[in-house]
């Protein structure tokens, strides 16, 4: 274990990485991540730098990733819409993708579920599914792009997040909407406010005109067509409007935090 620890990416979050990787190890990529300690790249470029504390490749990479957050925020055009597609272009079947198998996906009881709203908002009341379903909804057919590289076109219907933020009196000068999910691992993800206010960013209740199935995040997903897939949280249970960067499930493991498309 000690050896593994020294081989893992130091600057990112060692404890979290070790914990997640050893506890979950759900997919090949992450198992290879552990094995990656022995790879040429990791040996020469990661651990090589780890030996001397004066310079760490991982610290440098983390800094560049922060710089890339800033660059992406700067080129993010709040009025640029993600391309939309005809229904005929929808990918069937739409892939299920998560860090767990479908059988292990959260099972949320829609009758007892409530969306908690907290942070910099006027009205902190929790919302039942029934109440949320009454809000005006719009449909979008957009491309979902996974951080892994694949993409799929899907149809999502729900309430624009910016309408909901207005409804609850959110302070839209705050930096983030931070979403927490029902996963046992506590999936979460921060969404920068400008993206949260993008017209296509949506609280999604339906996929392909049907109530959002468990595979795609029942009862509510946040669909963000201007972000990579992992920034589209599923099984959402709470939203906090905040100025603090509270990290995210994948963000903490090294995925670029802005990850805009």
């Amino acid at each position, binding site marked *: 274990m000690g050896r593994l620890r020294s081989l893992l*990416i130091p600057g990112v979050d060692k404890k979290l990485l070790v914990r997640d990787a050893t506890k979950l190890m759900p997919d090949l990529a992450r198992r290879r991540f552990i094995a990656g300690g022995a*790879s040429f790249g990791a040996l020469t470029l*990661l651990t090589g730098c780890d030996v001397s504390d004066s310079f760490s490749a991982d610290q440098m990479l*983390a800094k560049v990733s922060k710089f890339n957050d800033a660059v992406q925020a700067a080129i993010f055009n709040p009025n640029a819409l993600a*391309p939309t597609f005809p229904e005929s272009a929808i990918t069937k079947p739409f892939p299920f993708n998560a860090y767990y198998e479908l059988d292990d996906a959260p099972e949320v009881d829609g009758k007892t579920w409530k969306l908690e709203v907290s942070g910099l908002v006027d009205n902190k009341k929790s919302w039942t599914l029934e109440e949320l379903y009454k809000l005006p909804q719009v449909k979008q057919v957009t491309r979902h792009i996974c951080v892994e*590289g694949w993409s799929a076109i899907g149809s999502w219907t729900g309430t624009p997040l910016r309408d909901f933020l207005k409804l609850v009196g959110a302070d839209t000068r705050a930096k983030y909407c931070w979403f927490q999910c029902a996963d046992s691992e506590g999936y979460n993800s921060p969404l920068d406010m400008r993206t949260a206010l993008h017209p296509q960013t949506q609280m999604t209740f339906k996929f392909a005109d049907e109530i959002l199935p468990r595979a795609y995040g029942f009862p509510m997903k946040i669909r963000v067509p*201007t972000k990579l897939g992992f920034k589209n949280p599923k099984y959402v249970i709470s939203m906090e409007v905040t100025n603090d960067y509270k990290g995210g499930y994948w963000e903490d*493991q*090294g995925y670029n935090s802005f990850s*805009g498309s």
Partner: protein
Amino acid sequence: MSSLAAGDERTVPAPAKIIQPAWVRTVHWINAFAMILMIMSGWQIYNASPLFDFRFSHAITLGGWLGGALLWHFAAMWLLMVNGLVYLALGLATGRFRKKLLPITPSGVISDVKAALTFKLAHDDLTKYNYVQKLLYAGIIVVGIVIVLSGLSIWKPVQLQWLTALFGGYDVARYVHFICMSAIVAFLIVHVALAALVPKSLRAMIIGR
């Protein structure tokens, strides 16, 4: 490397003919370093969602896992792009591209390819490129531009959607990006093999003469 070479120039009095000026050597080796980082991390990224029925061996990839590879890829891209822009700007401004790479005539290429295949292509004067070299060096510059543009179109398919559309959409752009990588790797194999066969060309790219 180039700073060492520049130092050599000052200490050695003999005014030998400079084959590769210092700026060419500098951008060449920075490009080589950035390109290798991009290719190795790119292979790791590819492995997360392969386009074809194979994956790259973990022994030749960089980053350890997808997240690590992405960090490398999106860091080295700045080095590659800035260095590439400097190269293009200086290549155009100094007239090097025009002098070294042009003209490329079909008949010249054909006769030099024939000579190369029969091992009759001479490398006596390293300051002058033969037509095969001209074609490959000009071609790899174009490939370098296309791989950067296709990469940007994959990275920003919403903000740069006009560029993504130019490549025929997000999914096609991934293939274009991969094919350009393949062309660069193929070039690299020939390029390194020939540099090993004609060591004075490698020497010129290190110390200039």
